[in-house]
């Protein structure tokens, strides 16, 4: 089976979060979701939508200080942000091993390309790009793993 790619357009942060919520229902336990996009593209906003759909009640911020935040909900969420680590990133050297291969819930990783070599082949990818004039309009590309 091939990986499949889908391109969607959203017009507001709320729409982007609704899209994240729909994706949440599709993600199996243990899924690793890689988020790509410039600073300010709305990666954290997307994770917030995901979190709400997973039943997380606490506010979700960027785990920039600790790299990893874990949340309990109806399903667990690990939110990883690799913003401040660059190049030569090795998921094992960062302490992500347990999250990539043993975590029971959903793992969402911002700037995941920085540990590209360590990522499992079954990752999901979401790319967020600003679109047009509207400050919150985005093109969202979702790439699903094969099979």
């Amino acid at each position, binding site marked *: 089976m091939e990986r499949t790619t889908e391109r969607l357009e959203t017009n507001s942060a709320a729409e982007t979060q609704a899209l994240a919520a729909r994706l949440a229902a599709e993600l199996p336990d243990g899924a690793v979701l890689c988020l790509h996009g410039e600073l300010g593209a709305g990666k954290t906003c997307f994770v917030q939508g995901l979190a709400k759909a997973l039943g997380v009640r606490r*506010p979700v911020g960027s785990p920039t200080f600790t790299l990893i935040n874990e949340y309990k909900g109806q399903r667990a969420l690990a939110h990883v942000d690799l913003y401040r680590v660059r190049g030569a990133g090795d998921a094992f050297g960062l*302490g992500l091993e*347990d999250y990539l291969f043993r975590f029971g819930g959903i793992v969402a990783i911002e700037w995941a390309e920085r540990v590209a070599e360590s990522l499992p082949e079954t990752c999901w990818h979401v790319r967020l790009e600003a679109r047009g004039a509207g400050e919150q309009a985005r093109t969202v590309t979702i790439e699903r793993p094969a099979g």
Partner: protein
Amino acid sequence: MLVLGIESSCDETAAAVVRDGRAVLSSAVNSQIASHRPYGGVVPEIASREHVGSFPVVAAEAIAQAKVAWNDLDAVAVTHGPGLVSSLLIGLSGARALGQTLGKPVWGVNHLEAHLAGTFLDPAAPPPAEACPLLVLMVSGGHSCLVEMLGVGDYRLLGTTLDDAAGECLDKGANLLGLGYPGGPVIERAAQGGDSAFVKFPRGMEHARNRKTDNGLEIEMCFSFSGLKTALLYHLKNHPADREQHLADLAASYQEAVMDSLAQRAERALKVTAARTLACVGGVAKNASLRAKLEDLARRHQARLLLTPLAYCTDNAAMVAAAAGLRALAGIGNPPAVEADPSLPLVEEDSAAG
């Protein structure tokens, strides 16, 4: 009651012996800041590796400094959350093994409650029962919230950050300004002599009157720092020369925005609660400009201000042993330490609105 506290929730390995929840007999801390500095923040893998090496050293040192025997201990208390799982597990495993071989109970302490107990490590602070209701501004690298303490173990969450923690916001700002890590102290140093009115950065959630979060918190008592970070980013983009020519002014303005936003929320909370005592805990509580703002606030509202002793603001184990001791002495007991819970809340989420 003699309690050995163990703390390893983030990047400090610490052990301490505290008598009756307030008298610190020893407090040993192995800070890993130097190991994490090159990465602009904590790297969980580095933290966990260092905890493994320093746990036995720090624990033995706490007992030696306190001049007590292992068997004199009544209990071992350990932070079981919130924090980094890979870090929490080290302190938890060490504490459980100690308790098992000593035949003493091992209690799980909430890291946030420990910070709160740090207030009472100041010998001049009143007993908790006298200080309550107490308004607590909790600000650190990983956490920012406003809590009303009604009694030991009885807390009401008033507000929390909707995105980044205050310390995290300072880290990001310091990174953007090229000042290094950790953000709080490096920004404070760079801000000296700077003009805090040079740029009027946003305070976040300024037009939020009468709105509530999904879990029922007043937005007026919540923090938001992501706009501040973005504002600094765009300022630097539009005025690239300012980074060289107005570094002190930018640092002062940024720090002012963070501290002012914290003080604003504390003031709103003072207005709507019965609390007449205000406390500030966590690493950011070390910031002199925040301390000055809170002193001014307390004066204007005839409130008493309790500031955590500087040595117990950043992560340490004295506050962990203190929290467990205060609960035990108040007769409400401590849960056994069984698992690490990275997202352990101070107040159960469902009652946050209550």
